[in-house]
Structure formats: C-alpha cells, structure tokens
C-alpha cells in the first residue's frame, strides 16, 4: 500500500481546483476518492505523478469539470418531471382555452376574451419557456440552443401580438412586425445555415425553411392588408362633405343656440377629439373643407385611434366628459335629443379600442350637426 504525504494531498487538491471544479463538496469527495485509488493501487515507491495523471484521466471524457457540470445539471433538474408535467398541463389548458376562445369569439358569445387571454398568456409565458428549458437540456450544441431560444422568443412574441390584436390593445402591430422580423432575419438564417451543414438534416432543413418562409409570408401578408386607395379617398371625401355640411349648418344657426353654455361645451369637446385623431393621422388639427385642397398628405387609412388620442388618457377623458355633457343636454332638451344608443357616446371607456379613427370622426361631426340643427 502506497502512503501519501501531506504535500502530495495538497498537490492533488490544487490540481482538482485548477481543473475547474469549484464546488467544495465535490472537491473533497474527489480528493478522498483519488487518494483511496492511489493508496490501494500504487506500489510502494511507485511514480506518484504519472500514476495520478493516469488515475484522474479515468474520471472524464474531456476535462474534470464535466463531473461538476453533470452534478449541477442533476441538482437543477431534480424537478425535471414536475416541469414536464406542468408543461403538458399548461400546454393542454392553453390549447383548450385558445380553441374555445376563438370559437366563442367568432360566435360573439360572452367569455371569449377571457378564454383567449388565459389561453395565450399561459401558452406564451409558461408553456413555451418550459418547453425551451426542457428542450435545451436535450440539445447538444450551442447552436441548437440558440435556435431554440430564438424560436421560443418568436413564439412568445407573436402569440402575445395576436392576443393584443384581438383584444384591441395598443402596440399589437408593432409586436407583430417585430416578431416577424425576428423570424425572417434572425431565426431563419441561423436555422437554415446550421441545418444544411449536416448531411443528415440537410433535406429536412431546406423543406422546413421553405415552409417557415411560406407560413411567415402568409402572416406578413395578413399584417399588411390595407384598403384600396379608392376606399381611402372615398372615406376622406365623405368625411369632408360632412364637415362642409356642418359648416353650412353652423353659419345659419341662431345666436341663442351659439350662446348656450352646454352647446359650446359639447361642440368644443367634439372639435378637440377630432383634432387629436386628425393630428395623429395627417399632422393637422382640422381638415379643410375646400375639396381642391385635399391632397395625398391627408389620406389616412381606417385604423386605431392613434397615439395622440391615447397619450396621457387625454382622448378618453374628453370622451367621458362629452358623454356626461350629452346626458345633461338631452335632459334639458326634450324636443331635440342627441341619439346616444349604439354610438361612441354609449360605450364603456375600456372598450374604446374597438372604435376606429374614421368612425369616431364621423360620430363627432354628426353630434355637432344634431346640435346645430336643434331649434330652441
């Protein structure tokens, strides 16, 4: 039996540390283990150093650190099965929520939004990250891990973008376009060039890449649907005609109406709401009623109410002021009511996102016309 000196033991411990084993617990275990092997298997008076090198090289494939990495992996993944179970359950729940939610949505049944919200949120914030963690454990190369990471991020972002879009929340379009950008310019190149290098995966990679390109292209086409230019022009002229009509009506209005405080309040609120929307779409506060002045800079597409409207809640505040003023007006004018039902005057502020710029502009002009046409 070989007898180890204290210097030799120190030497072994130092060597273990220098090979990158940092967990003290593991250092101690390995030290004792190596000492045992040397004491039992080395002849007295044998060559300590070369025997030590030979012994320690049995412990790993490439470097001693592997043991520590494996230990950390096992410690981290002792919840592996719990994670897998959670992943399957959340995956199932979100698919059910999503399908049921979409179905309820197209049937216009209540509860659709809650189901979609739950389904998509669980899928993108719980299911996909878990899937990523578990899949990267199986992935061998860093490249595979990067591909998985980018794919997961894309999946999370595009599902959230869809959710935002469906619930009419702001920034949905930006998220949608950013996620498609990630798909086309980051994911696809990494996936494609890492896949075709390997003869085994070459054909699969090419076909999958084409499918991804095709599916992504379809999504992009969907995000880019714009009404034809003719419809845009028609809408604008119709709106300008209403403004023109309003102007003519207001010119013929009696001074007593103009002097009415409630009239001025409602009229001013409508004017402010319109200018918030127009400012965002065309950069000007009020549109000219001279038809020859309408040019391309004033064409705008039907869409959300825009940043100016939502900023600091100004638009919503004006709208709820307007609602209150109209209620007051209707109470004091039994003969000339402003219709409220099924209009922007009748809605809860949280649903304002469902209204488009054009519909609100037209609503405002009509309210002003009702005011102007009222005889006192």
């Amino acid at each position, binding site marked *: 039996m070989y007898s180890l000196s*204290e210097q030799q*033991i*120190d030497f072994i411990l130092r060597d273990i540390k220098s090979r990158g084993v940092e967990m003290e*617990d*593991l250092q*101690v*275990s*390995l*030290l*004792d*283990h190596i*000492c*045992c*092997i040397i004491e039992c298997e080395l002849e007295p008076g044998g060559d300590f150093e070369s025997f030590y090198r030979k012994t320690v090289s*049995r*412990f*790993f*494939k490439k470097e001693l650190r*592997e*043991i520590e990495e*494996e*230990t950390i*992996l*096992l*410690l981290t993944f*002792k919840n592996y099965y719990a994670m897998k179970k959670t992943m399957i359950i959340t995956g199932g729940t979100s698919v059910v929520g999503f399908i049921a939610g979409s179905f309820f949505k197209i049937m216009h049944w209540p509860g659709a939004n809650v189901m979609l919200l739950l389904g998509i949120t669980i899928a993108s914030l719980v299911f996909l990250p878990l899937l990523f963690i578990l899949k990267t454990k199986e992935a061998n190369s860093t490249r595979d891990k990067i591909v998985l990471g980018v794919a997961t991020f894309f999946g999370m972002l595009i599902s959230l973008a869809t959710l935002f879009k469906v619930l009419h929340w702001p920034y949905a379009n930006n998220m949608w376009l950013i996620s498609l950008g990630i798909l086309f310019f980051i994911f696809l190149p990494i996936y494609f060039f890492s896949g075709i290098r390997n003869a085994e995966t070459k054909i699969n990679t090419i076909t999958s890449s084409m499918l991804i390109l095709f599916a992504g292209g379809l999504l992009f086409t969907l995000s880019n649907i714009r009404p034809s230019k003719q419809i845009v022009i028609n809408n604008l002229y119709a709106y300008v005609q209403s403004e023109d009509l309003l102007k003519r009506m207001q010119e013929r209005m009696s001074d007593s109406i103009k002097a009415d405080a409630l009239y001025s309040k409602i009229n001013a609120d409508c004017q402010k709401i319109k200018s918030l929307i127009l400012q965002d779409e065309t950069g000007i506060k009020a549109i000219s009623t001279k038809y020859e002045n309408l040019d391309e800079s004033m064409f705008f597409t039907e869409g959300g109410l825009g940043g100016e409207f939502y900023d600091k809640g100004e638009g919503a505040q004006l709208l709820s002021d307007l609602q209150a003023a109209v209620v007051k007006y209707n109470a004091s004018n039994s003969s000339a009511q402003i219709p409220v039902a099924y209009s922007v005057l009748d809605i809860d502020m949280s649903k304002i996102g469902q209204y488009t710029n054009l519909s609100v502009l037209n609503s405002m002009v009509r309210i002003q016309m009702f005011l102007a046409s009222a005889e006192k």
Partner: protein
Amino acid sequence: MYVYIMYSSELIKGTLKTIVLKLLSDNQKMYGYEITQKVKELTGDKIQITEGALYPSLHSLEAEGILSTETVNIGKRVRKYYSLTKKGKSTSREKVSEFADFMNTMKFLLDIKPQLG
C-alpha cells in the same frame, strides 16, 4: 452518463441509482470509493461505476433527501460517508422492486429462457 465496461452505457444508465441505493441499504454507510469497489467485486468486474457518473448521482440523491452524509477527517482529507435516510429506505425498496418487475417483463418480452448452471 459514462458507466462502462461489459454492458452498453444505455443499459446501465438508468440503474445507477438503484445500484447505489441497494448497496447502501445492505451496508449502512459507505463512501464513494468503497461503493465503486463493492460494485466491481460483486459483479466480478462486469460493472464498473465511473466517478464521473457516481458523484453527480450521490450529490443529487443527497439534495433530494434520499441520502444523508457524515464526514470523517482522515489526516489532511475528509471522507464523506453516505447512508439512507428514512425516505431513502423506502425509495430503495421501491427502486429495487420496480427493477425486478422490469426484469421479469423483459424476460417475458425478449423470451429469455432461464439458464441452468
């Protein structure tokens, strides 16, 4: 991971924990080197557990509360003895009977005739 010799590593991979737990239920407390030597001895060198597989398993079993440890100072070094906790004892029984059941199933599935002698 790399348990080797005689049998393919896939075959042994899933059984390392079972082997360790069974040894500890028969021997009260053991340290790492002792476990590798015992397995070698009992299997006539057919199964040799590598250190690269053993220590990660021992540490994770300890973290799961299946093994408890006590340390003994031996000169300049520290020896860590592993033994089964109460939970570990039942886990050990479960693992062994699960494996016995598995072997019977495999025998049946692969149509292995018991060999005499």
